[in-house]
């Protein structure tokens, strides 16, 4: 639900519940207030005083606005863009007027009518500027989403893997036709997912199934060199994740951690829920004394980019190399499916 794409919004309004969006709004509102305060007050001391007063006024407005917009987000993003913009501006005007009236109750002020007009002007300008900013940002990111998907299609499965797998299946054809059948079924399933529309979140269980199919194909080739440990502690049933978030990491782990070594190696996968966060940790051995592999960071960069597109600042991807193992840790918001 917190994804920019899952609900396929009709307009380019941001998700007001998203941490990144909230942060951006706070920064822009605060900065604009400081600038506005500077326009009327050239002396530093006066400016500081005016800024403090203005921010004390602006922050409650922002917080209340975000609460209301957060609740109305899914509705706002579904309706016509212009209607939504008008709604937002009206809501902001109501909030500002309310707060101004409240402040005037405490500290009576003269020239009330002229002053409230100034507040309204500032509010409308700032609201429109913010909406314009998010519209621009959305436009800048949308092609990136399409491009990331394209790039994903090309980079996701290494040609190396495809041809080696086909080769393995061919080798089974004569001696073990049934295993060859299963392998081809797994391979088609993998490619069905790769070629699907990968912008929507999918159930975690579906991604795990895909990983198992992928590992089955790799086991065909690598036999007992490849060991996998799964640690799945009470996973939320209907958790949703971006598709192909784990499989490419497993592919990386096999390519860099298992294939270059003659000794068997173990890939371990931990997935657990931490309050509202889903944590996935994947690690593989780092073989010693091999000639350098053409290591590309494509898969990692690709996943990081997709995480950002889906969850903005709420998801993180970190890697570390320690005690002869390479570890990737992904933390993402635990999104529940609507089923």
């Amino acid at each position, binding site marked *: 639900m917190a994804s920019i794409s899952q609900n396929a919004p009709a307009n380019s309004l941001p998700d007001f519940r998203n941490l990144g969006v909230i942060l951006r709004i706070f920064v822009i509102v605060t900065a604009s207030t400081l600038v506005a305060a500077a326009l009327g007050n050239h002396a530093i001391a006066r400016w500081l005083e005016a800024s403090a007063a203005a921010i004390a006024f602006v922050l409650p407005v922002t917080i209340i606005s975000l609460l209301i917009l957060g609740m109305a987000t899914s509705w706002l993003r579904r309706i016509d863009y212009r209607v939504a913009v008008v709604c937002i501006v009206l809501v902001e005007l109501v909030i500002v007027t309310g707060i101004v009236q409240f402040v005037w109750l405490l500290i009576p002020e003269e020239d009330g009518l002229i002053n409230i007009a100034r507040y309204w002007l500032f509010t409308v300008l700032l609201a429109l500027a913010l909406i314009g900013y998010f519209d621009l940002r959305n436009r800048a990111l949308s092609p990136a989403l399409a491009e990331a998907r394209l790039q994903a299609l090309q980079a996701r499965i*290494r*040609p*190396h893997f*495809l*041809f*080696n797998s*086909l*080769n*393995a299946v*061919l*080798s*089974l054809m*004569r*001696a073990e036709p049934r295993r060859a059948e299963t392998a081809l079924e797994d391979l088609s399933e993998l490619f069905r997912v790769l070629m699907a529309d990968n912008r929507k979140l999918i159930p975690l269980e579906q991604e795990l199934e895909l990983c198992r199919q992928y590992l089955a194909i790799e086991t*065909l*080739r*690598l*036999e007992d060199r490849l060991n996998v440990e799964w640690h799945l502690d009470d996973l939320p049933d209907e958790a949703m994740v971006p598709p192909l978030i784990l499989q490419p990491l497993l592919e990386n782990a096999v390519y860099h951690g298992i*294939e*270059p*070594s*003659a000794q068997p190696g173990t890939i371990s996968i931990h997935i657990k829920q931490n309050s509202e966060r889903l944590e996935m940790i994947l690690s593989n051995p780092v*073989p*010693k*004394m*091999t*000639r*350098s592999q*053409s290591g590309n960071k494509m898969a990692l960069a690709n996943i990081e980019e997709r995480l950002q597109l889906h969850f903005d600042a709420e998801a993180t991807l970190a890697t570390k190399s320690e005690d002869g193992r390479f570890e990737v840790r992904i933390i993402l918001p635990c999104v529940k499916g609507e089923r």
Partner: protein
Amino acid sequence: MSGAKLRVAITDDEAPARNRIKNLLDDVSEMVPIELVGEADNGRKLLELLQKHPADVVLLDIRMPEMDGLEAARHLQKLDEPPHVVFTTAYDDYAVSAFELHAIDYLVKPIRLRRLHDALSRARSITRISLDVLSEVGPEARTHLSIQERGKVKLVPVAEILYLRAELKYVTIRTAQRELLLEESLSSLEEEFGDRFVRIHRNCLVAREFIEAFEKESKSGAEARWVIRVRDVEEALPVSRRQQHIVRQLGKKPG
């Protein structure tokens, strides 16, 4: 082709890939007489295999653990009668384009019967690949050094080498167990294995990993000089005046 059977060896780290080639060789043998001399799952084992069972052609996978195909091919060239090498690869476009450039024989996996047949048919007519070309195609540091001894190839894992010392026209390789003579230059070795070895003297490269201690050795009448103690070796290796800064650099690490 003469009446003799073509002796073929298979090298691939994946059993299914080896099985597939065996199936295909069965099919080819109806047209070209073939004798399968054996299979290996990495380059080092292939070299061991060939010491006992010489082959005319080796089908050599590129990406393998322990010793990859490109490196194995380099060591193979030291045999008295090096076999003809046909690389097999799933997808290594960098290598494939290099192969085309130098007219090196290769097959892409999955291999087609027709292509395998062609490669085996011309196997005896192609000359050997030069070492220079192989080191150009696979420029990464080798995992083993190879020494030719009475037509056989002896392999020394680089990870076991304590130090390398230049003596006249040879380089002495010192491991915990033995000393061997290598016909390569110390400076090219330093270039290739600079990550692993450090030059302590004009004629000596020492494996950083095996350095045990730095000592100041004073002889009567002479100025004191630094020496390095290496694990499992009695003799201390002198550090030249010019390289004394490495004592300070490496001295920081424990031990």
